[in-house]
């Protein structure tokens, strides 16, 4: 995962609420390995007709967009990380919404995608602004947690730990492996305190 401090680019305006992860990546694409890519899976049934032709849709209306502006409750529902893969593979580095599914937001940050949370009023200001000037370049500053679109400027929220992860391109696992002693100490103490928590019964089959 590469580090991301600043993202400037054009916007795809998906002004819809409740875009769940089943829509973002329909279940039938989920057998794919990561390396096979998920860009066509992204919002597939919104973007493509049954015969595979591209419908009139807000994603394909702009080419090369790197910032997705959505509505309320983006990425609610299923925990499928393939939803984050699909957004990333479709070229986006930032999603702006007034609320996110918790698991989606966690998955996004772990895949180098910024889940930028803004107040509902700010989201409508941004959306209105962009409806008038679709070609505007928007810049998202992950260090300062600000979004600039023309003369409009607003703040967004991102959990500290996710911000650090995105800014550094870190993987949690590298950090956790340094906690081996703390984990061992916990397990030893816990075994005495919660003997009932062990898995007992039949051995692995």
């Amino acid at each position, binding site marked *: 995962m590469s580090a991301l401090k600043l993202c400037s680019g054009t916007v795809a305006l998906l002004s819809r*609420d409740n875009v769940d992860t089943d829509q973002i990546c329909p279940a*039938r694409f989920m*057998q794919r390995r990561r390396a096979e890519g998920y860009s066509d899976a992204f919002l597939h049934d919104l973007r493509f007709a*049954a015969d595979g032709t591209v419908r009139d849709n807000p994603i394909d209306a702009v080419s090369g967009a790197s910032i997705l502006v959505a509505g309320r409750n983006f990425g609610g*529902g299923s925990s499928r990380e393939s939803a984050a893969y699909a957004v990333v593979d479709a070229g986006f580095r930032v999603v702006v919404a007034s609320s996110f599914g918790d698991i989606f937001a*966690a998955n996004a940050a*772990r895949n180098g995608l910024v889940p930028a949370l803004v107040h509902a009023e700010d989201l409508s200001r941004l959306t209105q602004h962009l409806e008038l000037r679709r070609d505007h370049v928007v810049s998202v500053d992950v260090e300062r947690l600000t979004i600039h679109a023309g003369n409009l400027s607003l703040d967004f929220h991102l959990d500290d730990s996710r911000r650090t992860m995105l800014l550094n391109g870190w993987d949690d696992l590298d950090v956790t492996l340094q906690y081996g002693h703390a984990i061992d100490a916990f397990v030893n103490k816990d075994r005495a305190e919660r003997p009932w928590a062990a*898995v007992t019964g039949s051995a*692995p089959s």
Partner: protein
Amino acid sequence: MARTLFDKLWQSHVIAERGEESLLFVDRHFVHEGAFHAFDKLDARGACVARPDLTIGVADHYVPTRPDGWDPDIVRMVHDLEKSCRRHGIRLFGLGDPRQGIVHVVGPQEGLTLPGLLIVCGDSHTSTQGALGAFAFGIGATEVSHVLATQTLWQKKPKTMRITIDGALSPGVTAKDMVLTIIATIGADGARGHAVEFSGSAVRALSMEGRMTLCNMTIEAGGRCGLIAPDDVTFAYLRGRPYAPPDFDAAVAAWRHLHTDEGAMFDREVRIDGTGIAPSVTWGTSPEDALPVTGYVPAASDHPGQEQHVADALDYMALQPGTPLEGLPIDRVFIGSCTNGRLEDLRAAAGVLRGRQVKVPGHVSPGSAKVKAEAEAEGLAAIFTDAGLEWRASGCSMCVAMNGDRGAPGERVASSTNRNFRGRQGKGVRTHLMSPAMVAAAAVTGAITDVRRLVRDVS
């Protein structure tokens, strides 16, 4: 200091802290076919599974429910899970195992899910297992690989919310109606970022199965997890289960401390009057789009600020504002899923179907192979097949349509599942969520029906 149940669960799992996040110890990690991304990541690093003894594989999402005509691409997903589990020494409840079933049905049923545990699975409905007083939540594939490699997870402590439901439920009203009413009240993101504890006399009065239905759909309100303090109902449910602790009484003594202390504070409190809840159905494409079955399809103007969502939903669902929900013709029914695929759910549906014939096709997929065997032993399977429904094997089936069980485009489906998302049950399928008894009533009349009418007929 007075602590909430959630505080107690959280604090007993903290290994270390770093900034706003804590490193938590994971007591049980369930993996299903979707874990292949996580196993791939593990392999890419050359890492091993840290605690195969605390990891349990369950085949459910891609399991075929028909005896024949298996799609090789789908069965391959199940075999991939078998291979990963074998390679890493993980116990697996796979195809043909009498313990196989939907992961969130199997965990409690086998006594692997216990009060006081921290449980994760790469599946959002892991919240189901909080019904036993565990801190249980869904995670993504990268987190799954982290748990596989370390048996731990970094998490920011969620806020706490208590939803209190008091009063006796009316006849014909179930846990499913309670949770649909809650989601319609607080919204599909109403519990976002919160650990939700359910309390109140209506919750206490629920069976273990009903409690699981309630916690299952906490995620549909955006909640991080759902929780119910363990009590005698919980302990009676667990006693004698295959993986229940050998010294069960000592465990119960410890579990009795797992409740919210008098005077503990929540970040948010919601109260719902249980006596006012009616059998409910969804009309739209989000679980928050739920109404009493006696209601009418709303107009966009009924939901200020959400006009676009309502208009889009009605368009997808092919519904006109003002149409009564009762009487809406349906094309197919499905009974099953981790929401409503347990024995009590099948009994409720069979109670409506006994001695009747269905007007539309559909199938029943029990929540686990064990539920299937029990339902067959007590004659429920025969009631379903005599009524004209198909009786299938256990799996996620038409809840998520990954195994090939799906509706046809444009079909209107009455379903006992948890998500009425666009395309969830097959491309273009229009899903109406409701309780298993309500699905059975819809099957009998071929239209959405207030189950209380049919129950009155019978009595």
